[in-house]
């Protein structure tokens, strides 16, 4: 299980994260952020593999990825 979190106020809606997400779970939200962009957001977080493709691709360092590791 992984969680991706977006610093929404920093997203410029460029959609690059969307392009690279293998699970296709990122979309642009309907609302605008303060800069006037539709921010990216994950719709089905449980499908996220924590591959961090999105974060690696994001030019604005909007995304943080945390993975829940199985207790050893």
């Amino acid at each position, binding site marked *: 299980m992984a969680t991706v979190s977006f610093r929404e106020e920093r997203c410029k809606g460029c*959609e690059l994260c969307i392009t690279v997400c293998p699970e296709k779970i990122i979309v642009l939200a309907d609302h605008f952020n303060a800069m006037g962009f539709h921010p990216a957001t994950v719709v089905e977080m449980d499908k996220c593999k924590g591959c961090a493709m999105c974060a690696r*691709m994001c030019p604005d360092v909007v995304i943080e990825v945390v993975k829940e590791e199985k207790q050893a």
Partner: protein
Amino acid sequence: MAKVIFKRPEALTDKQFHYCPGCTHGIIHRLVAEVIDEMGIRDNTVGVCPVGCSVFAYDYFNVDMFQAAHGRAPAVATGIKRTLPDRMVFTYQGDGDLASIGTAEIVHAAARGEKITTIFVNNAVYGMTGGQMAPTTLPGQKTTTTPKGREKDAAGLPVKVSEMLSTLDGAAYIARVSVHDPKHILQAKKAIRKAFEVQQAGLGFALVEVLSTCPTNWGLSPKEALKWLAENMIPYYPLGVYKEPAEVK
């Protein structure tokens, strides 16, 4: 247990980038910062940013920074490195900055084997000033100063920086990478790391040419821009390591 897979590197300040949506300058910044973090050299690094869209990079890198005159970053970096030989010094330069007005400075920093690392962002255009032709603008590419497309007789052919600098004996490490998809981003990071390691080892001048997008001035969406880069720039500017000292291979 929660493990952070990916987070903002420490070598970036928390300041928001001013870049256009989808501009890959941001990715390249992050890679440099990640390398600085991973090598543990933040305390010991000095960066030099150019005149170009990345002129404000001094606000983003969380290290001591210089803003250099257009094209002169390698000279400024030389001034720093020669006074403080044990610091890690890098320049971050665009293609107008490095390959046009700053040609003499980069050639001679390389020839001197100046122990600095240069991150060269080739986006085939002058971003900052409104999309004029850069030395790296592709044949046929439309820009505000080649409104009908770059044409050989009027505006010549592109400068291939990595190839050119590789002819200099003082240049120790030269590589061309791209950031148009995650796989290439990883490769780019490796090259950047190597370029810092070459400096650390005192082996000479190191440069990584990073193919980058300018959606705004290319008149493309960020997505289209990545595609354009892959389909047009990479064939013209082949990726790869052009020069590498035996010591770090």
